[in-house]
């Protein structure tokens, strides 16, 4: 499986008269076709900004980029207007947290999906509508033919989210970006949508980047998980390794403090403090103020992301990098 998306040393900064926010500070990762990369992080970690940068969705005036984002070899950060327009929706598609805002309330669902198909693939009217119907069926919406004529406000939250997935997949993108698509959904609906995304990813062999703050959700859909903190990836590993043996103190704290089965009666191990202010660039590790294992070397300079074995990368001085043939 070749690399679909290659992100190298991405930096994204928002500049306003009041302050400068370093939202993303050197993020690198790859995504292959047919795999799901989960990006896990809390608010302010930079996960949504990273995702939106792939489609260059930030206002041009206030945003500064550096680094490289390559989709199948094409550099996105330097793409011209028309190439970017072709990219969006056709090669890379995105689904959002709030499906209500993704659809225009004055047009039917069918109209909007058919229109997207027509614009990107040049198909005729009848063909586009039939493709729209097929798409609604693919996302398991019951009575798809009737739903084509429904307006967004006539559908329930879960239905709208499925319709948004249909819209995103309408032009056969090779990469699907998901920005917390299930956060606003009820529990019984969330699991339906998660399973749908997993199935569709297998059927269509697309690459998926799934951003979430919920560990359970990340575990359900991802093949690999990247944990982000203060604009950097602090750990990146296959999902089993991340859950069984997280190495970065933040990842470990996150897993330990997430409430689940069987924790009743025990005190929760909470990570003290709060995420840092992204207007300031720290001299050392961004997690140092909250870390239980902090040392002098942590504050002196920012730690590097190092390979640990089994494609497990960790950004922490405590972790020994893999030496030839020797497990860490």
């Amino acid at each position, binding site marked *: 499986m070749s690399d679909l998306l290659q992100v190298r040393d991405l930096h994204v900064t928002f500049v306003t008269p009041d302050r400068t926010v370093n939202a993303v500070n050197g993020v690198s990762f790859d995504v292959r076709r047919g795999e799901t990369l989960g990006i896990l992080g809390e608010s302010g970690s930079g996960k949504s900004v990273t995702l939106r940068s792939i489609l260059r969705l930030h206002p041009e005036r206030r945003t500064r980029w550096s680094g490289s984002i390559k989709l199948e070899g094409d550099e996105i950060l330097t793409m011209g207007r028309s190439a970017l327009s072709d990219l969006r929706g056709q090669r890379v598609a995105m689904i959002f947290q709030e499906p209500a805002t993704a659809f225009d309330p004055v047009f039917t669902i069918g109209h909007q999906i058919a229109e997207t198909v027509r614009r990107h693939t040049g198909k005729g009217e009848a063909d586009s509508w039939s493709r729209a119907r097929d798409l609604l069926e693919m996302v398991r919406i019951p009575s798809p033919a009737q739903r084509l004529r429904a307006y967004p406000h006539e559908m329930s939250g879960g239905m709208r989210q499925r319709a948004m997935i249909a819209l995103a997949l309408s032009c056969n993108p090779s990469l699907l970006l998901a920005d917390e698509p299930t956060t606003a959904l009820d529990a019984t609906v969330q699991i339906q949508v998660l399973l749908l995304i997993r199935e569709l990813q297998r059927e269509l062999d697309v690459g998926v980047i799934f951003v979430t703050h919920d560990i359970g959700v990340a575990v359900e859909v991802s093949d690999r998980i990247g944990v982000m903190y203060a604009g950097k990836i602090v750990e990146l590993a296959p999902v089993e390794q991340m859950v069984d043996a997280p190495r970065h103190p933040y990842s470990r704290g996150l897993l330990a403090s997430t409430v689940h089965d069987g924790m009743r009666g025990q005190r*929760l191990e*909470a990570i003290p403090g709060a995420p840092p202010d992204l207007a300031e660039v720290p001299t050392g590790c961004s997690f140092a103020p909250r870390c239980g294992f902090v040392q002098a070397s942590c504050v002196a300079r920012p730690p590097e992301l190092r390979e640990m074995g089994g494609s497990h990368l960790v950004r922490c001085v405590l972790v020994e990098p893999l030496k030839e043939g020797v497990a860490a």
Partner: protein
Amino acid sequence: MDSLLPLEDRGGPAQPLLLASGLRKHFPVPGGLLGRSGKVVRAVDDLSLSVAKGETLGVVGESGCGKSTVARLLIRLIKPDRGTMVLDGDPVDEPHGITVNELRRQVQMVFQDSYASLNPRLTIGETLAFAPKAHGLPAAEARARVRDLLDKVGLDPINYAERYPHELSGGQRQRVNIARALALRPRLVILDEAVSALDKSVEAQVLNMLVDLKTELGLTYIFISHDLNVVQYLSDRVLVMYLGKIVELGSVEAIYGNPQHPYTRALLSARPSMDPRRRTKEAPIQGDPPNPIDPPSGCRFRTRCPFAEDVCARFEPPLADTGAQAVACHMRVAGSGHSKAATS
């Protein structure tokens, strides 16, 4: 020195702290002629619950189940259409009982963190001093109370009393929300999605704090949330709601260990798996939670229930005791006519 003393226990440990019977609240749907369309949102229908002193009662359900309405009914921010409430033996809002204002001294609420939960024009100190001052506490004592409250929730008074809400992080704001609820020294605190908007690492801090405060101040909690894991962690008894009605009620061990209502089972298995090797293979139920404007006849869950039969559409199942818990399902009521029910 402090004229707002904590209130005394009246009926002893066996008497429930709060007893609600037959609560009903329907909201008219706007629109149509003269602003009335004739439709109603049946938010809460004939709901009864009791809360024992010192326990944590968890309330779970999805959107439209009415749990937030229940919270507001219990604190009388909304007046119920029907139903009674008794606080530690005293009927509320009735001739021989306590007034709503007196109820509010003993029952307080913590709201979900949002930009609307704290007044952006007031400092934290002013927000916290509001309730005590409104009840007659002089300014100097109110200031002392504010310092005490901030201390209890882990915020340094010197640093935080003069700050504005926008200068605080989500976790800090939620601590202030909790402090505000404690300002009048209540006995019962209703927490309506109190940790739902917080990051997971902050959520853990706040949960620890809630547990500590409960022990330290002898509080009773009603914890409302859509997050089943957190409810399991915090609660002693759990109540499951669907479309304005209680479908199952019991101890946390019974509900989580042996759920009997099909909806409870679906909710529990809808939780994402934390083990990548044992991922969820199939969604427990299909469809979305329906609209509380026109709930299905009979059992409201029947439109999504894999075991629905004729009797479910015709009769509403009563909340029946099955030993460890109470369930509202025809399958558990002997002689109900459901094929899976025991014949009496």
